[in-house]
């Protein structure tokens, strides 16, 4: 890689590849939360495992957005990586939406939902 780049800059790099033809948005896997409508349940922010974001990057973003110390951020990142997802915060709906937006700004795959616990 030290001899980078041997790329063809004259061509379009962002080719529209056939297997991308579907316009369906990427859906986080749904896990059943039934119809429990107790309004006092907190809202949780989930980060989902994805094959693109680097582990070092995810850890750093969790530190930036939530102010978590390195150990906690690393632990959460490993949870995401090994279990497929992790709850990274819990609280009001407004706060959860704000965090999800920030995580999206950093390109993490984050969703929010009301806790079913």
């Amino acid at each position, binding site marked *: 890689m030290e001899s980078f780049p041997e790329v063809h800059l004259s061509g379009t790099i962002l080719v*529209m*590849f056939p297997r991308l033809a579907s316009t369906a*948005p990427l859906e986080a896997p749904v896990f059943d939360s039934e119809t429990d409508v107790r309004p006092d349940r907190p809202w949780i922010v989930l980060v989902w495992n994805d*094959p*693109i974001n680097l582990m070092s*990057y995810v850890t*750093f973003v969790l530190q930036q957005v939530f102010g978590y110390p390195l150990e906690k951020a690393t632990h959460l990142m490993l949870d995401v990586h090994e279990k497929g997802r992790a709850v990274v915060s819990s609280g009001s709906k407004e706060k959860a*939406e704000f965090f999800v937006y920030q995580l999206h700004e950093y390109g993490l795959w984050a969703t929010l*939902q009301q806790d079913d616990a």
Partner: protein
Amino acid sequence: MTWFKKPRIVSSSPESFSLRFNESERETLRNILQQIQKLFQEKNPLDPRLRRAFPVAYSMDQESETEYQRLMQDDLFSSRLASIDLVISTIDKEDISYSELLRWMQALNSTRLVLGTILDVSEDDDRTSLPEEDPLYSAAIIFDFLGMLLDEITRTLQSNA
């Protein structure tokens, strides 16, 4: 994760980071970022190449999701574009600041998300085997280069935070 033998980002002080790219690397970065800039400027949320860069927030509640996207999607496009613009306008500089490097990190990551989506990257992919005539060859090379660069930037920011 492979590492650069020679670092591309060197912190000269906690507030100043020197960019050590050669001319062809700068040219390649500029080229890919301009293509990403054009793609984001189209602001088409249905473009499949944007699937990972613009994810859903409510996966189980379509109504909330529609409302969230109505309120936030424009901001996210603007934020992504602002970071891309900043990298394009600082790429020829010798040194950049901490906050500029943070923007670089965001811009390179969103670029990587688009490339990874196009390449349909999975955990255990071996992209090094793509033949040069493959239409995705350039995307694969740049994806890997950006991965190394992003890892270096993240560690540099981390140790100077």
